Each structure stands twice: as C-alpha cells, then as structure tokens.
C-alpha cells in the first residue's frame, strides 16, 4: 500500500524541508536572540541559570565605548570599500560592455575571480603582501623611494601596514573593494545589455560621443540595478566580519582600529562569554542596517522624483 499524496497537499510536502529548516535555524534563533538580549546567565551553569535583567544589556552596550569604536570603524569601512566599488564598477562595466568583443568574458572572469575565492586564502595572501619586513608592498615602496623626487613623498622606513591603526582600515577597505568589485561589474554589464541598442544608434546619429552616450543613455537606465547593488553593498559592508577578522588576527588590531561591530559581538560572545550583551549589540547593529537600507531606498526614490 503506497501512500498517495494528493495534488492539493503535495506542494506543502515539497516545501516542508524549507519550512522546517527555516523555523529551526532561521526564525527560532532570531526570536531566541531577542529573548537573550534581556537576560543574563552564568555560562558555566548554562541556560538554566538565566535571569531577566530588562534593558541592562542594552544600556551596557550603549555605554560601552568599544561598541561605538566598532560602529565607527564599520561605517568607515562600509563607505571606503563600498563607494569605490560602484564608482569604478560602472565605468568599467561600460568599457567592457561597449568596447570589448572577444575579450569580454575573459576580462569579466578576471575581475570576478576574487569574489568566488576563499576569504581566508585571500586575507592570508594580502597579509603576506603587506607584511612589515620586506613584504612585497614595502619592498616595492623601498625601490620606488630610491628614485629622485619620490623619496620625499614615500615613507623612508618599512610601514607596519597591518599593525598601525592609521593604515589597517584602508588595507581592509582595499581588500573588500578588491573582492567585490567584479560582482558589481557583472551586475552592471548585465543591466547594460538590457538597454536597447537603438537608443545608442540614434544618439550616434545625432553625433553623441562615447562619454555622452554613457552619461545620457546608460547611466539613467542603470538606476534600478544601482539601487539593488548599493543596497547589497550597504547590507554586506555593515556586516563586515571575515576580512578584518583574519587581517587583524581575530583581535581587531592596534587600538581596535580594524574591529567591526560584527567582530566585536563575536568576541563579546565567544572570547568574553557574555551572550546577552552580544545579543544586545547584534540588535543594535541590525537596527542600524535597517535604518541605512531605508535611507538608501529614500535617496534613490528622491532622485527618481526629481527626474
């Protein structure tokens, strides 16, 4: 006797693995995290010793200077790594889409490759390149500094790129930019291919040059994908964890200059065993991400109103 599943029930059966996984590992953890935010307990005794403390965790998080340091770092990194991604990806995508024939796929592949490779491998690779004593970057700077004029501009001693609080953030931002540029290039190339060729034809008839075509035809029609891409970059940038975590050896670097909020909440939970406080920080970060996403949305809607 085989159980026959009726067509009216079948879809629910087919979706059930998603539902079960979503409830168990998606929804439940988030609700649990919300509850944790208002509680404290002794990690040795486990959850049985859980005590309600109201807003204490949140108040503690707000008074914790490191929370603000990490939020400052996160915003700095999100802007410094995110903005160039789009400012460079758009013209680059235009060059690739309009001017390259045979080479297009190979060039796109080269830019896309970092996106699919392991963050750990990438971060290790850049740690080596930016190493203080005779790392590739310092060695090249030393060489360049021997040339006339440049010696006044370039540092005379080896730079401790990953150790100096002034340089760690730009390095992390660069690595993130390097990793995600190609993804954005491909988004924009795909969007550009959806723009009808007739419009360019007409513009060329009217004597528009490449730049004018880009400015007046391509750019305005990229707005929806720009909105999508910028939203992804914002959400991703504000959650930044892996790159700074590995580049700073998991600790956040000198003066915590490379510690993002996601890293700090990880450390609060797993290095200091304060899960309640860590949950409070994660909800703070969530609210900030939500606010930024709404702001991005508003900014794009606003522009559309003018146009």
């Amino acid at each position: 006797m085989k159980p026959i599943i009726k067509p009216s029930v079948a879809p629910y059966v087919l979706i059930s693995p998603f539902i079960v996984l979503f409830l168990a590992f998606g929804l439940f953890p988030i609700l649990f995290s919300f509850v944790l935010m208002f509680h404290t307990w002794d990690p040795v005794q486990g959850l049985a010793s859980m005590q309600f403390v109201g807003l204490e965790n949140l108040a503690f998080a707000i008074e914790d200077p490191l929370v603000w340091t990490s939020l400052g770092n996160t915003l700095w990194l999100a802007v410094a790594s995110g903005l160039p991604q789009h400012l460079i990806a758009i013209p680059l995508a235009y060059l690739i889409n309009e001017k390259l024939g045979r080479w297009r796929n190979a060039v796109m592949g080269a830019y896309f490759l970092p996106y699919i490779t392991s963050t750990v491998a990438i971060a290790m690779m850049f740690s080596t390149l930016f190493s203080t004593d005779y790392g590739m970057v310092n060695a090249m700077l030393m060489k360049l500094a021997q040339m006339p004029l440049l010696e006044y501009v370039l540092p005379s001693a080896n730079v401790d790129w990953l150790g100096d609080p002034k340089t760690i953030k730009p390095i992390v931002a660069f690595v993130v930019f390097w990793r995600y540029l190609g993804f954005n290039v491909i988004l924009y190339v795909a969007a550009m291919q959806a723009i009808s060729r007739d419009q360019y034809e007409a513009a060329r008839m009217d004597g528009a040059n490449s730049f004018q075509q880009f400015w007046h035809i391509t750019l305005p029609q990229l707005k929806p994908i720009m909105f999508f891409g910028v939203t992804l970059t914002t959400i991703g940038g504000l959650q930044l964890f892996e790159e700074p975590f590995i580049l700073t050896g998991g600790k956040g670097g000198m003066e915590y200059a490379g510690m993002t909020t996601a890293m700090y909440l990880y450390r609060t939970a797993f290095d200091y065993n304060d899960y309640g406080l860590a949950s409070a920080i994660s909800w703070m970060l969530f609210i900030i991400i939500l606010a930024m996403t709404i702001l991005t949305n508003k900014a794009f809607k606003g522009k559309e109103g003018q146009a």
Partner: protein
Amino acid sequence: MNELPKSDHNKLSWWGWTALLLGAILMLGPFYFMFVFATLPRTEIFSVPPPLFFGDHFFANMAILMQKIPFWVNLGWSLYVGLASTALTLLFCSMAGFAFAIYEFRFKNALFSLVMGTMLVPAFLGMIPTFLIMDSLHWIDQPRALYLPGAAPAMGIFLMRQYISSAIPKELIEAARMDGCGELRIYWSVVVPLLGPAFGTLGLIAFIASWNNFIGPLVVMRSVDMYTFPLALRSVQSPVDTEWGALMAGSAIAVIPLLIIFIFSSRRLIDGLTSGAVRG
C-alpha cells in the same frame, strides 16, 4: 549575455586598454604571488628584491603545513561538508522550486515572499543563538551543524523555480498525472531528470559557498580535528612566528579547486549568481 557586441562599436582607446589591463593585473597579481610564495621558503618570500618566480620549496612547505595541522583530515571535512551541503541543497531547493513553479495553493505568494525575505536577514543576528542551539543539541563539532541549517537557501529555491517554470511544460506534468503517477513520483521521475543544467549551476554555487565558509565552522567547530580547511588554515597564522610559505601553500590548495571550477564554468556561475538580481 552571450551576444557579442556588433562590429559598429567604437574601438577601445589606448587609455581604456591600459586601465583594463592594470585592473586585471591588480585582480590576478595577488593570486600569482600566492602561488609563487607557495613554492618558496619563508626567508626568500621576504627578501630584497622581492621574488617574482617560482621556487622548488613547495613540498617542503607542505611538510611544514602538515606538521602544523591535520591537513588531510581538514581537507576531508571540507570536502565532506561541501558534498553533503550540495546534495541537500539540490534536493530541498528543487522540491520547493517545483512546488512554487507548478502548483497553485493557498498561501503560495505569502510563502514565496517568506522564502525571498530570508535573504534580507543579516547572518550575524542568528550567530549567538545558533551556537547555543547547536550546543544544547550536542551538535558542536558535528558536520551536520554546518551542512543542515543552510540547506534550503532562498537563492537556490528562486533559481529552481525560474528554471522549472521555463523549462518544464505543464502538459508533461498533466500527462504523468493521467498515467496515474503520484505527485512525489512526478517530482522524482519526471522533473528531477530534466533539471541537469539547473543542478549544475546551483550545485557549483552551493559547493563553493560551503568550501569557502568561514564564520559557520568558526562558531560550531571547536576541535582542530573537526576544523574545515579554511579554519585550519587560519590556525596556522600566529602573531609571532608564522610559517608564511606553508600558509601560502595551504591557501593555494584552498583556491586551486575554485580556479579549476571557474575556468570550466565561469559563464554558468556568473549567470547563476546574478540571475536573481537582473531579473528581479
């Protein structure tokens, strides 16, 4: 995306070529040096002038790496978790994608919005409770803690729904039903055999995501013998005396499978990873 540009296109100026070329060097250069460093002893990596060509120290570096971590064990776990995660993802996403593509049912739109909505929830929000849940399930150091929770990703369900609604005619389903096929039988014997291309794309994406996953194992894998490869690689890095040659050899090994996959299927991967964005 596959059409070549028409011949009437403007030619790329010399500065355009220079910019593209410099960009490509910037993108690929670091990989080149990773491979070069993987073949050099630590003292030569950091020598002046910097080394530009391959050495013969690769196996020595590998020997050092194997002293530092249980290399084959870690690589084995990465492979195991990757394959398990891929298999489950293909199964669960094709099931859900099939349901959303073919059936009409109550709450269909609400459920689909729920699926897509899970993409917007930031991962860190669940990090701490997930650890506590895994801990109370005694799943710490269990591979299933890595491949099970994310086995029905929204992106995969979306990809499958798109593919099934465009590639599988509803008449085929109807005909199978006429022949007395049960619904699950239709899924398994009629639909699944036709999903080859979509399985290929989603399978690659799922495997790569699992292979590169770092935060997941960082939270739930606590003993070195259960580390996946990226996590083990990170443990080689130390504040005082890092074996950079060994580390670069390990990094190269983490990257090589991806390079091979990418060379053979970059087109498919790129289309798969961006399809949701461009259509949606």
